[in-house]
């Protein structure tokens, strides 16, 4: 793992074409350690695609992804994970036949820990997300609401330097969303990771994020603090068009 607190993740002019569709066009952003960046935009605006490009699940058509001086563009996902990037999935992907503890432990093992060390780390990560009591349950038997927390714990267990969360609040009610907020807020400060979060829960996003980056049809339409973004005309128009409410407050 790269050990440098000053490291920054750079996404440079990423374009991603699918057959007959440009999902991302010239997207540039950077993510610093210790900060929380919100990536928002209407459905289909390319948020998941961008996470997939950064973490190696998709190869960009053009553009680079760098971590510090290391160009990781086009690397396979498992190598990118070893650089210290961890993610969750919008469509939950747990190891359903393994226990919750094993789900998290295997991430720590894959980051290079021995099994006893990995167990300690996994218990730490489960405690962070408030799921210690679920440790021995098979992941396939978890109630829906708990699954996303386990995915976050699994991502945390590798002690990432950059963490990507794809809609961690999907399906949560207000109270659960508040719990998530409490859980996520101190993470970057305490673990030193940079966090990029995608979500449609604007209550959460506005309170959690230091900065926002807004996509629409694959293009950056706005960047800034939550307050700046909230009042941006183009952002409001994009969200009006999508029928989603941008401003809860």
């Amino acid at each position, binding site marked *: 793992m790269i050990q440098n607190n000053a490291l920054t993740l750079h996404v440079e002019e990423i374009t991603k074409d699918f057959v007959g569709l440009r999902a991302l066009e010239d997207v540039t952003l950077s993510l610093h350690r210790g900060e929380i960046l919100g990536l928002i935009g209407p459905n289909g605006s390319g948020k998941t695609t961008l996470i997939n490009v950064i*973490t*190696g*699940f998709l190869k960009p058509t053009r553009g680079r992804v760098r971590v510090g001086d290391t160009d990781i563009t086009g690397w*396979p*996902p*498992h190598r990118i*994970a*070893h650089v210290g990037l*961890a*993610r969750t*999935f919008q469509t939950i*992907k*747990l*190891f*359903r*036949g*393994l226990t919750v*503890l*094993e*789900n998290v*432990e*295997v*991430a720590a*093992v*894959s*980051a290079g820990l*021995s*099994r*006893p060390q*990995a*167990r*300690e780390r996994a*218990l730490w990560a489960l405690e962070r997300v408030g799921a210690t009591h679920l*440790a*021995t349950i098979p992941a396939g038997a978890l109630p829906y609401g708990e699954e996303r927390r386990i995915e976050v714990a*699994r*991502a945390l*267990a*590798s002690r990432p330097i950059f963490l990507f969360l794809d809609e961690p609040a999907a399906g949560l009610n207000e109270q659960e969303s508040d719990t998530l907020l409490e859980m996520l807020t101190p993470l970057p400060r305490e673990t030193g990771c940079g966090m990029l979060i995608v979500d449609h829960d604007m209550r959460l996003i506005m309170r959690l994020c230091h900065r926002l980056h807004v996509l629409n049809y694959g293009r950056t339409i706005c960047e800034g603090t939550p307050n700046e973004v909230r009042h941006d005309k183009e952002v409001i128009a994009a969200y009006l068009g999508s029928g989603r409410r941008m401003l809860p407050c």
Partner: protein
Amino acid sequence: MHHLKSTSWWPTSLLLSGPLLVLALVVYLFGGEVLQRILIVLFINLTMVLGLQIFMGNSGVVSFAQIGFMGIGAYSSALFSMSPQAKAMALRNLYSFLVPVQVPFVVAVIIGGIMAALVAALVGYPLMRLSGAAAVIATFALLIIVHTVLINWSEVTNGPRTLFGLEAYTTLWVSVASGILFLILALWFKETRLGLQLRASREDEAAAASIGINIVWVRWIAFVLAAFVTGVAGALWAHFITSFSPLAFYLPQTFLIISMAIIGGSASVSGAVVGAVAVTAIFEGVRGIENAINISTVFPFTVSGLTEVCLSIAMILILILRPSGILGSRELPT
């Protein structure tokens, strides 16, 4: 923090190997030769299905190639265990540098395992990118290739003809030792870091890659280890049966161990053990009935293939009623 006891492989080891050892002891003391031979077959089958479990059970990728590795183990151990005189009789065209080579039985068995592992290592890496139907087809092709080589490389295999003249070194206790040893190995492997990573990749490839698991690599290691175990099983079988041809390492035997894995439940080592015992019992039982029918003059006909029919029915029933096998992914005693 420490209230969670760590996953441990030895309680299951004891629980599974205990009854097997008792069974072996009872048959050794009180059973006749026929029963002893059946038990040797059981323990060799067990070794073989454990080899399959190590790869298929943990990775979720089906391999039809295992019996090819059994054949490689059988022939290469034979080349190293047979006396120069026996080779001169049975393998007239053997490369001359191999004729005088003779090593102790145990060494020959290990060589058998190593040769199988080497072949698996060389051909396996590109195969490990595959899963699902593609893996079935590719590993099946590998079985056919190995079979074709065994039939045609007559310098070392005597071609399609029977190779004879091996010593019957594989006693009951040799087969028991192998079965128990690899039982423990399989249980231990599951709980290693690599075993855990492999099981995670079985459940979800994308999630496994996202946490840094190199799926091709972990599968490849398991494939090579599994080939070693299966090669050893082949070597033991060769020195039990003492004469065989390449036909012994083909479809019927493949069907047999796949049915063991499916009936018992390949995701757990306990399932592999249950499958090996159940299928060997069905197989030997039905074969006994078949022989009885054929020997007696009561019936105006003879039967053949009854064992395959019964195994197929058992397998179909299991697939319908309990698709993940008798034990599924559970390890005894849970």
